[in-house]
């Protein structure tokens, strides 16, 4: 049987039938009628006595023979079975019922009761068929990922939210209002080109490191792209580490007094976790503070101060903050007094700006951050060291900044050491310096090393003049603070800078080029000849250049040679390491490619598919692409493959109805709840093969609903159901008249229904809360718009939702809000700009919220003026006048009242007492069926009393259609009915809907076979609309 253009819920509740031609009754039936189902025997008898003669008499004249009218041959309608198999019998029913057939020019017209008998039979046949085939999976067409799914999927596949479909054309919706079904999602050459360009762009974001394939938030084609990526990743990593002494001392103090503070059993590690500090470094400090008492030197002073800290107050008050601060000050001041400093190196033929010397100095600082300068100790009997006269000869304007010496006051008690006690004190200073470094890491280094004012923002820079170079200086952080896993993560980031960003090679090449090109000025080294034309980065060439430096530095102090050897040794080692790692990584990249394809296709690859990928990579290499480019191209192939772009449920058996495979089911579930690909756990269940079990399925659905990705359900399902998905694009508001309508407010309006929907879903609230809730969600800008007091924002340190400015308002009805109905998004969306639109708002309530089918207005309908301020009469009276026309009244009676209740809200959803022409607004209405009410509260009461079941059916049906990625068909009726019933029985809790859907026959199975079907009539290849067929 053919079922098209059926507004499903309408059909069930009797409001709309096929063709939706009849006017609805004033009050829709609150409950689904339960017709008595006639069996096949009775139907067969009635066919023979009623239908067969009817067809013969009134139809066959045109609909038979060589060329039947409308290519509809009814001579085959010889039995009830034949009638049921006629694919277009739904159309026959529609034609008979509407009176369009027999045609006006037919020889004979049936008497009304004769027609009614035939119509009744077809209806009973439908009832019978629905019952018999209830739960049929229906035809779920192959569907390409829609724009939203594509964005979410790319995000989860690459780890970066690239939103590649931003500039794609909008996806059309199916009759159910959703853009996730094969019915409406089409492909075209121009769209395919966009996918191709997007795939290239995504692949250009890929980079290959020593372990595999990764993606950056920006393209990774130019050298500076890699610099940007890794510099920021490393800086972010540093910033995530807690290196504040205040935090550590506070934690240690709380740990010491843990019993008094109510945590008697807390371990040091527990305390570290609570305080968000490194457990490793806290333990080190604890040993210093609470370990054996020292008698002389800085640690003894630290211990004295520590022990002097007061205990918490009687209510756990922090009484020691001041003392801890003094302790911290003592440490930091002392550290500055004993900081080792290293002057710039120079040699006769090599100036201080040369990389070997600057790197040498950087290394000295970096490796001495946990040591101290013994020369700063003022030992009683020792002579004071002579001040340095010319600290840095040969440092020129392009060289590194000068190194100011540390100068301490004579007799500084922190530094004074009794005569003969140097060794004992040095040991104490050494221990102190190991625990309290100069700094944990250096994030910015300008050319003027000690000038912390200039050269800001040169993160990780080595400090060269005009040349690139990065230098790692984080030994204290690495050794004192990071655990093993963190150390590995940081090492990997620095390695990526080289393996991906090529920084050592670039630094060296740019430097050597600069040596030679600038003509051998003072202090530059003349490059040796290169008879073999060696690459500048090759080992022989590095050695040859090193030798030239050694010659140039002749006469310099020993450290200069040490610096030269160290530099070229480091460069050569690093270059060779990177070469080796890249070589070794190539097979890993091919494996990563297969893993990427597997995630993209949402199922394991076949061996043949693996081979194909490899073959294509090799072909690309053969065509002259290098490794990176060939991998990128392979990524493009994966992203363009139908296995990725389409959700295809591959057939496992060739039968009409078959269970979906575990992987297909996993995809169906994840695209339903997340609009994106399945996660590892879901795929593991698919692989284990137990996803079909009702318990497993429901448990997975519940788990996934709690995941942040479930926001997509609120946005994609809720947004399309309630028609606010594209609210952020609306441009109808006149911002001069409504200056409050900023982009921020618009975003907030969009966010409000998303938050409420998500809360109902995730907190398992009753779906009726969507209508009747007394709460809603606001952020500061929306609260202001609603006239609510500004919400208290959560503090940024509270983990999940930190910095989130959204909050729940429990008494929203006091401000005229609460639930979906009075949300600004809908009130604004359904107002044309400078006035409200009770028609649009009412239509939205009736159509989107309650699910009643409303025919589009006839083309001749007069338009209301655009600006409310310029109306002669209140809008209400203009509409009354319009309703006086009986032709208009039929439809308007259904929704006008539902819109007029919102007149207390202006064009951008603001509350108001008067309209834009300063006339007081009137929100009292008479609802369909005659009951009176006023405002949103009146509407809520009316729905509760008369339309609630319709709302519940609508939610059930819409959610099912979204979950199945298809429009509903008649055989879904029993399931929707069951969903609504279960919902009511379980307090309307959202999870009952979810559970019922994911365990339904429709959800778990697939209709479709390889052949064109057993009965060729049932499958019109030109017609890809959903069809109903029977096994």
């Amino acid at each position: 049987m053919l079922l098209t253009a059926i507004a499903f819920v309408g059909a069930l509740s009797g409001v709309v039938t096929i063709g939706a031609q009849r006017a609805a009754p004033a009050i829709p039936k609150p409950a689904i009628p339960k017709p008595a189902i006639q069996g096949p025997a009775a139907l067969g008898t009635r066919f023979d006595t009623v239908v067969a003669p009817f067809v013969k008499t009134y139809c066959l004249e045109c609909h038979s023979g060589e060329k039947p009218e409308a290519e509809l041959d009814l001579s085959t309608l010889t039995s009830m079975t034949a009638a049921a198999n006629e694919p277009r019998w739904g159309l026959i029913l529609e034609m008979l019922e509407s009176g369009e057939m027999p045609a006006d020019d037919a020889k004979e017209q049936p008497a009304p009761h004769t027609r009614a008998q035939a119509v009744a039979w077809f209806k009973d046949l439908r009832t019978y068929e629905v019952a018999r085939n209830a739960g049929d999976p229906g035809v779920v067409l192959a569907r390409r990922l829609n724009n939203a799914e594509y964005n979410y999927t790319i995000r989860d596949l690459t780890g970066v939210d690239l939103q590649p479909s931003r500039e794609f054309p909008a996806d059309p919706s199916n009759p159910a209002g959703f853009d996730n079904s094969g019915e409406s999602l089409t492909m075209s050459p121009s769209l395919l080109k966009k996918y191709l360009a997007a795939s290239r762009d995504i692949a250009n974001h890929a980079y290959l490191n020593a372990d595999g394939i990764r993606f950056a938030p920006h393209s990774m084609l130019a050298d500076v792209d890699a610099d940007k990526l890794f510099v920021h990743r490393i800086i972010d990593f540093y910033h995530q580490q807690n290196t504040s002494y205040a935090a550590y001392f506070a934690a240690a103090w709380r740990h010491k007094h843990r019993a008094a503070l109510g945590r008697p059993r807390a371990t040091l590690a527990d305390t570290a976790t609570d305080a968000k500090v490194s457990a490793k470094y806290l333990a080190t400090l604890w040993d210093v503070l609470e370990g054996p008492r020292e008698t002389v030197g800085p640690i003894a002073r630290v211990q004295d101060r520590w022990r002097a800290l007061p205990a918490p107050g009687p209510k756990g008050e922090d009484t020691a903050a001041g003392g801890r601060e003094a302790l911290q000050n003592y440490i930091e001041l002392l550290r500055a007094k004993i900081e080792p400093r290293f002057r710039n190196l120079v040699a006769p033929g090599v100036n201080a700006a040369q990389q070997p010397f600057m790197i040498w100095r950087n290394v000295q600082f970096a490796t001495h951050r946990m040591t101290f300068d013994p020369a700063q100790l003022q030992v009683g009997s020792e002579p004071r060291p002579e001040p340095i006269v010319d600290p840095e000869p040969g440092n020129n304007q392009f060289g590194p900044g000068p190194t100011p010496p540390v100068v301490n006051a004579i007799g500084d008690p922190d530094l004074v050491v009794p005569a003969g006690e140097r060794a004992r004190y040095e040991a104490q200073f050494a221990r102190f310096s190991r625990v309290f470094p100069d700094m944990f890491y250096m994030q910015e280094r300008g050319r003027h090393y000690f000038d912390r004012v200039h050269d800001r923002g040169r993160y990780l820079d080595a400090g060269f003049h005009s040349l690139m170079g990065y230098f790692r200086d984080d030994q204290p952080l690495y050794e004192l603070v990071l655990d093993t896993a963190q150390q590995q993560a940081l090492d990997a980031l620095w390695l990526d800078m080289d393996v991906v960003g090529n920084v050592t090679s670039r630094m060296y090449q740019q430097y050597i080029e600069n040596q030679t090109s600038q003509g051998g000025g003072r202090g530059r080294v003349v490059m040796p000849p290169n008879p073999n034309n060696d690459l500048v980065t090759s080992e022989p060439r590095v050695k040859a250049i090193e030798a030239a430096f050694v010659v140039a530095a002749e006469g310099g102090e020993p450290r200069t040679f040490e610096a030269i050897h160290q530099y070229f040794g480091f460069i050569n080692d690093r270059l060779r390491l990177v070469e080796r790692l890249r070589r070794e990584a190539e097979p890993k990249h091919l494996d990563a490619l297969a893993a990427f394809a597997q995630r993209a296709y949402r199922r394991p690859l076949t061996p043949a598919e693996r081979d194909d990928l490899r073959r294509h990579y090799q072909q690309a290499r053969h065509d002259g692409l290098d490794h990176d480019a060939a991998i990128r191209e392979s990524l493009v192939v994966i992203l363009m493959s139908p296995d990725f772009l389409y959700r295809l449920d591959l057939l496992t058996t060739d039968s009409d109805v078959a269970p979906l495979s575990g992987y297909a089911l996993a995809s169906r579930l994840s695209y339903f709840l997340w609009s994106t690909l399945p996660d590892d756990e879901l795929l593991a269940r698919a692989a284990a093969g137990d996803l079909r079990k009702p318990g497993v399925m429901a448990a997975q659905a519940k788990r996934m609903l709690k995941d942040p990705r479930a926001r997509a359900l609120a946005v994609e399902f809720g947004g399309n159901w309630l028609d606010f998905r594209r609210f952020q694009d609306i441009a109808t508001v006149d911002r001069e008249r409504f200056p409050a309508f900023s982009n921020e407010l618009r975003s907030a309006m969009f966010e409000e229904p998303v938050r409420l929907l998500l809360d109902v879903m995730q907190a398992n609230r009753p779906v009726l809360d969507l209508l009747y809730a007394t709460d809603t969600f606001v952020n500061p800008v929306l609260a202001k718009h609603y006239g609510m007091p500004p919400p208290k924002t959560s503090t940024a340190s509270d983990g999940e939702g930190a910095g989130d400015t959204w909050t729940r308002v429990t008494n929203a009805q006091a401000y005229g809000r609460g639930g979906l109905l009075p949300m600004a998004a809908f009130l604004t969306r359904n107002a044309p700009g400078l006035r409200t639109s009770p028609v649009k708002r009412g239509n939205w309530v009736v159509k989107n919220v309650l699910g009643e089918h409303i025919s589009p207005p006839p083309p001749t309908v007069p338009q209301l003026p655009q600006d409310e301020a310029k109306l002669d009469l209140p809008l209400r009276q203009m509409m009354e006048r319009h309703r006086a026309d009986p032709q208009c009244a039929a439809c308007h009676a259904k929704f006008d009242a539902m819109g007029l209740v919102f007149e207390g809200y202006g064009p951008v959803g603001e509350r108001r007492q008067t309209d834009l022409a300063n006339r007081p607004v009137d929100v009292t209405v008479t609802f369909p069926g005659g009951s009176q009410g006023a405002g949103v509260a009146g509407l809520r009461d009316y729905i509760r009393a008369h339309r609630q079941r319709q709302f519940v059916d609508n939610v059930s049906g819409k959610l099912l259609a979204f979950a199945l990625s298809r429009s509903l068909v008649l055989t879904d009726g029993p399931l929707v009915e069951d969903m609504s019933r279960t919902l009511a029985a379980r307090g309307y809790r959202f999870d009952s809907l979810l559970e019922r859907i994911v365990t339904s026959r429709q959800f778990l199975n697939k209709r479709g076979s390889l052949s064109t079907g057993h009965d060729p009539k049932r499958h019109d290849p030109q017609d890809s609309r959903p069809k109903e067929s029977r096994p």
Partner: protein
Amino acid sequence: MSQHRPSRRHSRNAVPRRTVLHGIGVTMALPWMESLAGFGSTETMAAAARAKEVAGAPKRFAVVFQGNGINPNHWWAKGSGAAMELSQTLQPLEKVKTKINVIDGLFNKFATGNGIHPGMTGNLLTGAPLKRGAIMHSGISLDQMLANHIGQDTAQSSLVLACEEPMTGYHETNFSNAYGSHISWQNADSPMPNEMYPSLAFDSLFENRGNMRNVSVLDRVKERAESLRRQIASTDRAKLDEYLSSVRDVERGVERLRVEKDKAEDRANGKPLLTMKRPDNGLPEDLRVHAQLMADIVAMAFQTDKTRVVSLILARDLSALYYPFLDVREAHHGASHNDTSEGYERIARFHLSQFAYLAQRLDEMPEGEGTVLDNCCLLYLSNMFSGSKHDNSKVPLITAGGLGGTLETGRTLHFADAGDENRKLCSLYLGIMDRMDVKLAAFGDADSRLSLF
């Protein structure tokens, strides 16, 4: 959208030209070798095809950049048309002077007030403010904006070339030197990588590269879709067929690129297209050879419609190039601090002569009624007028070519006194884009066109 590019790792083992020093004799083949093509086609058919094709001769754009300014004493032009008088530095353009415009007085507001060098360069073609420190930020550049609009129908949407390695350290103004090395930006956050290797630039136009590469991708997914048809329900096949026919359609479009050469031959009125031998691997040792190879590649790419958009850096900002063949001992940047010297005039003239060479090459290529140059706009500019003063209150700028008759040439235009609002580089760029059918309301810091241009 970006097309396929050779990976940036091509440069991993780059041989810095000036490191491999002294005297490897490189024998270069003559860049131009006559092609044997062009004979034997039916005259009448070719003529008919030509009449149609020539009307649609593509418009091309190339920008040629030289950093650190010119010799201000020797950069001027007077008069117009055949009577135009050219200064010493501009002499190389004598032969094509009726096809050029010498434009004086334009500037880029956001490139001023940033201190010297990199802050004067990274936004030359973008008109956007730049950021100091590690976060680089400019805007999309003129050439890439054009490439995004008109680049899809050619093998490469654009060529981004350079004759000098980029620098990426920090200048004392705290702007990254990468700003001085990149004038082409694919978006505000990322510059386009420069191709320095003539051999790779050459390859990118041919064989199986760039947009052509899409055929290989589409072939693969087509195969896959065809094999999938056997594993899916009959009802799903219609959806897959829709995908397959889209793939085939796009593939046919890409394959059309392969016949561009024939069209180019038609446009050339039966005259042979110019061809060149594939340049040797590696970087040419001699800057003169390098620059000329790049110009030849551009000329060939334009004639055969392999790309319509090019940017070419001859010498970057803070250039470390040196010019023993011009008898200048100092490297480029150092020499620019003495920019009124004869030596620096020779440097500026050398670079301008590369531009003139390209213009002449294109002007020797017949296309329809005119030449390829007539359908181009070549833009020559530097980031400052005076390198000794680091003065970019105006920049030296010359255009060549008539963009298919839409751009009047043979003129000297003066904007220095027009007021800052009326002498923006971006206003010029809007005018160029208009003529290439890329109509934007605003670009960079401009929302109006130059009067008179």
